[in-house]
């Protein structure tokens, strides 16, 4: 009797296994896509987060007011038309008819007004508040939304194409708890933090993004994001077919490239720039000569080729390549070239010898490629009598920490690294205007130049931006290192077609189909 029971159980178990495998086949047959990432979003509210990992998700749920093509020209989005007043202080947007939120409500000009009012409300505590510009008021006349500024802010329109400016529906923030309701290509289904996020295609979607071909509903029905922190496990998931699209490990990307079973995607429009910066308030790094020597010691080619496995490029400007006014060759003439011998000489003249090295910290966040880069950097610095100790944290806590560190005027001097991305060089303003991002603001002169470029447009603005970049580089407040630097690579199995990476490494799934 007992034995019989056991056999029955085993049969049931086998049946369950069969159902299990059958299930996984049927999942693959439906138009579902599974994407594995290393880090989860920390919020789905675009006004509460500024990490790339979060904005990649919000950008699927929310649309932007305007869109941008590969060449940086503006195109319609939620707004079908827009205009700027002569004085550059008033913007009007005509909101498109018949745009529906995921909950069925209509998205109109008053909805857009409510959304902007929320973004700039101090009570929202929006980390990207300064990117919205000096907005003084919003008003609605029929389909037209009017936004008034206290002074001209030329990057405003490009900001409205970016993933930080997703347009949340008013019903999303009507209650006490935020609900991810937007007008974007995917509807929110469920989210288990640090495990999975489920989205489904928005059947009524109308696309206006010029980077996307599909005019309507995304071809795939369900989109699941899984969080798999271990790169080893993520790669195994891709190889075993458990995931269709993954963030690959840098270490294996070159291997995947030469394997016809997989595809590699690298964002061309990342807008990302990796920088080194200094504790310029602390001796002896208050001396621009010493900072310059440290910059001259940094072997950026090795960072790109060894630490990042040759998958990124060195870059010379404080703003990412391909953004407005960025001229890498021009920046190269301002920055110091790699010259460890010259750098060592400067350090020795300043009294730092092999016996009496300058002791500093390299403060950084953990991230694939970056960790390796800091180790090479440490060795570079050792060659010019700078003894550096590496101190790392997770991305978010790194920036918490830097907020305090950048205020210090004594104690241990440090070099630190960071990455910034955007669709417009105006992010210089976010970073360097006092108090600046994590208190990295510089001085009155820089503040004035940064404000000035916001008021200018066209060539005059480009010239002003070059002036700022020249100032930052020649005084070695920053050493531009690489571009891009994070989340810019994706890998998929060969059956995935039409996957694209947009501006600021946004993930575009609208055109994705699965080849059987």
């Amino acid at each position: 009797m007992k034995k019989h029971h056991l056999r029955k159980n085993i049969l049931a178990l086998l049946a369950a296994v069969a159902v299990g495998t059958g299930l996984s086949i049927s999942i693959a047959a439906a138009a579902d896509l599974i994407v594995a990432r290393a880090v989860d979003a920390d919020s789905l509210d675009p006004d509460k987060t500024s990490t790339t990992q979060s904005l990649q998700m919000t950008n699927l749920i929310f649309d932007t007011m305007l869109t941008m093509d590969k060449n940086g020209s503006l195109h319609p989005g939620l707004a079908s038309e827009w205009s700027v007043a002569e004085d550059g202080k008033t913007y009007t947007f005509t909101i498109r008819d018949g745009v529906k939120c995921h909950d069925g409500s209509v998205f109109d000009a008053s909805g857009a007004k409510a959304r902007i009012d929320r973004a700039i409300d101090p009570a929202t505590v929006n980390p990207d508040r300064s990117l919205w510009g000096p907005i003084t008021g919003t008003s609605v006349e029929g389909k037209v939304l009017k936004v008034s500024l206290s002074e001209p802010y030329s990057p405003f329109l490009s900001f409205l194409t970016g993933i930080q400016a997703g347009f949340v529906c008013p019903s999303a923030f009507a209650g006490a708890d935020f609900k991810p309701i937007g007008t974007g290509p995917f509807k929110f289904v469920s989210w288990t933090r640090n495990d999975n996020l489920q989205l489904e295609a928005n059947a009524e979607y109308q696309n206006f993004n010029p980077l996307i071909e599909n005019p309507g509903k995304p071809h795939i029905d369900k989109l699941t994001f899984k969080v798999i922190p271990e790169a080893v496990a993520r790669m195994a998931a891709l190889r075993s077919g458990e995931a269709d699209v993954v963030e690959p490990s840098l270490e294996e990307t070159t291997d995947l490239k030469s394997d016809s079973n997989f595809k590699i995607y690298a964002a061309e429009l990342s807008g990302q720039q990796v920088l080194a910066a200094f504790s310029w308030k602390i001796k002896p790094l208050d001396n621009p000569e010493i900072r310059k020597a440290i910059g001259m010691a940094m072997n950026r080619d090795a960072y790109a080729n060894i630490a990042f496995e040759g998958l990124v490029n060195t870059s010379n400007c404080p703003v990412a390549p391909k953004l407005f006014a960025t001229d890498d060759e021009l920046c190269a003439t301002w920055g110091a070239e790699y010259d460890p011998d010259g750098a060592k000489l400067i350090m020795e003249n300043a009294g730092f010898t092999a016996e009496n090295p300058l002791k500093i910290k390299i403060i950084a966040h953990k991230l694939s490629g970056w960790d390796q880069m800091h180790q090479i950097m440490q060795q570079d610095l050792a060659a010019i009598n700078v003894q550096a100790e590496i101190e790392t944290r997770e991305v978010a806590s790194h920036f918490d920490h830097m907020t305090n560190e950048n205020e210090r005027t004594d104690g241990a001097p440090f070099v630190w690294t960071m990455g910034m991305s955007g669709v417009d060089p105006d992010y210089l303003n976010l970073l360097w205007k006092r108090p600046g991002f994590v208190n990295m603001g510089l001085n009155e002169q820089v503040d004035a130049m940064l404000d000035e470029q916001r008021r200018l447009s066209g060539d005059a603005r480009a010239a002003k931006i070059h002036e700022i970049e020249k100032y930052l580089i020649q005084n070695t407040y920053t050493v531009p290192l690489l571009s891009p630097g994070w989340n810019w690579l994706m890998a998929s199995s060969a059956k995935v077609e039409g996957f694209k990476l947009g501006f600021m490494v946004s993930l575009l799934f609208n055109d994705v189909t699965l080849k059987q």
Partner: protein
Amino acid sequence: MTSTIQTSVQRRHLPFSVALGLGLAIVIIMASLLSPYLMPFDPMRMAAGPRLTAPSMKYLFGTDEFGRDLFSRVLIGGRLSLGIGITAVVSGLLVGGLVGLFAAFSGRTIETVLLRLIDVLYSFPDTLIALALVAFLGPGIGNATLAIAISLVPFYARVTYGLAAAERAKPYIEAARLARIRSGRLVRVHVMPNITQSLIVMGTLGFSSAILSASGLSFLGLGVQPPSPEWGAILAAGRNYITKAPWILIFPGLAICLTVLSFNLIGDSLRDIVDPRRKGRS
């Protein structure tokens, strides 16, 4: 106590595993101590060889992603890993020992309260205590060592208390008490010498768990930071090469395994005598 240990070893017939453990431990300790003379390359020098070369006669354990010689790194890493282990064990033993002795000879109320507290902490796995502490203290070799040392305190306090309490029950202590010898002197002169050897035995057991904790912390990025060649840190930094260059993962992993194994083998056969945990938990 010495004789108890000896007879128990004889009784248990485990000399082979003890010998194996001792042999391994001696080789590992000697290799770490002599590492500066044994290393064929500078363990920190990048491009000492081509990147990611498989083990060969020239690069015994292969090279890592920076072209550093892994054999040299694992050798010198032994100093770091063993160093963390020894520092943590000695300080944990010292503090835990004092707490345990104090509990045993401090009078009823303090004894009960202290013992209760020790038992509470003792019910937590030590790796977890270290992890929680590092989360608050911040990463780095110093904080990791401190956290591991603290994580061992409950274990050592409990062990010392057990030994001291057993000793306390012996007639000679009763006699000494009657002779009005003060507690401090009593502990120093009579109790300490009698339990030291057992404590050293327990030290070896704490050592292997300290090494494992350290490698776990490094693996999670909360412990020793790269480019330090601590074994867990090498493993953590090289884990993404598991398919491309598995040797970066295999050799430091083996080093951890063998070290922990050797001390476990030594400690294990001796532990039954002194570990209160096996003497029936109430």
